[in-house]
């Protein structure tokens, strides 16, 4: 504690090689504690990280299907039923943080063969589109089917960018991911609502505004937060679409 130097106190002069003996011992112990403390902290921090989920690119399971490209309002590929396999609707994203609006506009309404890589997390599948080509195909039996309204719902959860959450950048949610999610949505990646409860067994929803149109900057303040919001839910084959009325949105935490 003393600020008064004493004759017997060891005195360290940095540019001299000789270090007083009591200080050598003290500094050696400190160095060991410093290095060991950092090592222990690293082990504690690294080994207790939260589970980022099991999403990821399915590189070994390439996607190639013939279907119709639709804007709902984000690009989706609608694949007709085939035998026992019911019709499916896939959300689409481009390479990196890009959407596939151009391809969807260019091929709107005509059959296409779409190749890509699925990014998958549980029931949520986003296709990273590799190529889109016009295809010779005839769809019978009223395909594509209309969306089935499931009524108005109040959902709690988080708005994420669908691609990162599906596994491109795990965990792809939470405030630490907010800026990345913003950048993804600006680039055209479809937003998804990840709900804490489910609607007909599904807890993620492709998002649209209350009129079923594209969402814009009004989404940004709500992104990556735990919110409550009302809106109409409709079913598009196996995909749920949430027409969120953002004027009802409330940040919960």
């Amino acid at each position, binding site marked *: 504690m003393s*600020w008064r130097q004493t004759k017997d106190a060891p005195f360290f002069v*940095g540019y001299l090689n000789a270090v007083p003996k009591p200080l050598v011992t*003290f500094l050696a112990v400190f160095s060991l504690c*410093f290095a060991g403390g*950092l*090592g222990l902290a690293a082990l504690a921090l*690294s080994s207790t990280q939260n589970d980022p989920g099991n999403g990821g690119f399915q590189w070994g399971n390439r996607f190639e299907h013939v279907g119709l490209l639709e804007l709902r309002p984000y690009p989706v590929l609608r694949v007709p039923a085939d035998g026992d396999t019911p019709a499916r609707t896939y959300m689409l994203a481009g390479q990196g943080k890009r959407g596939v609006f151009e391809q969807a506009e260019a091929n709107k309404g005509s059959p296409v063969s779409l190749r890509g890589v699925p990014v998958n997390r549980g029931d949520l599948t986003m296709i990273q589109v590799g190529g889109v080509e016009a295809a010779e195909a005839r769809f019978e039996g009223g395909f594509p089917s209309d969306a089935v309204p499931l009524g108005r719902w109040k959902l709690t959860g988080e708005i994420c960018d669908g691609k990162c959450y599906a596994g491109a950048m795990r965990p792809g949610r939470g405030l630490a991911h907010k*800026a990345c999610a913003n950048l993804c949505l600006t680039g055209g990646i479809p937003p998804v609502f990840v709900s804490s409860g489910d609607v007909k067994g599904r807890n993620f929803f492709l998002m649209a505004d209350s009129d079923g149109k594209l969402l814009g900057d009004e989404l940004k303040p709500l992104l990556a937060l735990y919110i409550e919001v009302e809106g109409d839910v409709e079913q598009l084959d196996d995909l749920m679409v949430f027409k969120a009325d953002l004027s009802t949105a409330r940040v919960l935490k």
Partner: protein
Amino acid sequence: MSVQYMPVIWNRNKIVYDAVLLIAVALYLYVYIRVGPAFEDVTRPIDGAILRMRAFGSCAFLMLTVILCIGPLARLDRRFLPLLYNRRHFGVMTAVIAAVHANYVLGWYFNFSPTDQYVALLSSNTNYGQILGFPFEAFGIAALLILLVLAATSHDFWLSFLGAPIWKALHMFIYAAYACVVLHVALGALQGPGDPIFTALVAASVVLVSGLHFVTGRMEAKRDRGEQTAQASLQEQGWVIAGDLDEIDDTCAKVVTLSDDERVAIFKYDGKLSAITNACAHQNGPLGEGKVLWGCITCPWHGYQYNLADGRAPAPFTEKISTYRLKLVGSTILLDPNALPPGTHVNPIEFGGDS
């Protein structure tokens, strides 16, 4: 001390200091990136880029915590003083580690987009009006910029070029950097799913840094207010009672507080007394906590030296500090509180041999 600015003048102490630092940092990163994941309870391993950015980010935070604790620890226990020596190396290494963290963030979260990385970083989240979802990246950028400026100006060339007061004021921004880092973490990583260990470490860091500074601040204030404070004991035409001869050990000093920013160190050596300002011309180190080595006052921080009678660094060095006049009445030391111009010769007071 040096008369010219050499890139690095190495000695064994510097090498050992840097080696310990490097080993500790390398150990931290190795354990975090290679060893820790083996003990994780996760469905799939954490992505490599995220693991590395977390490792480097948390390492920089802990290093900054230790850097800020060294100062008050050295005030509380002088055995920590050697850690002050080369603390600038510690700071530069922290800036490098923080820059690597930022680079991983840029290359991961702000990459793969048609938007330029740096534009994306600044424009992706601009919700500055809300606390939840506040662009915590801004605090990280501010902290990194401060750390980089401090690292770039850490060399003695800048100390000499800017002068000790400005250099010192500039480097006090380390506290702003720390505050920014705490906010960066508090509004970012800590808002995620509960991570009690990381939360506890950040809280412990804030408590430790604030607590140590609070304790040392109180200690200094108490000293300034103390009964022995010469400020209040003016006698004999402005002379100040500085204490008793026996209070001072040979080759050591007693520090007398004249006012908030003026302290005088009275040294006792070879049966003589001399008084100089307490502030070293190098980094305002506390000269009175140093010792007389080879006939010179030696600063405890970086070993800068001054002659006792005139406060001038021995040739070929050119630093000068203020001197003061002394008087001895019996065993009571009296001090003239008016500082003499730096480098002014004052005959030492002789009291007849070692005591």
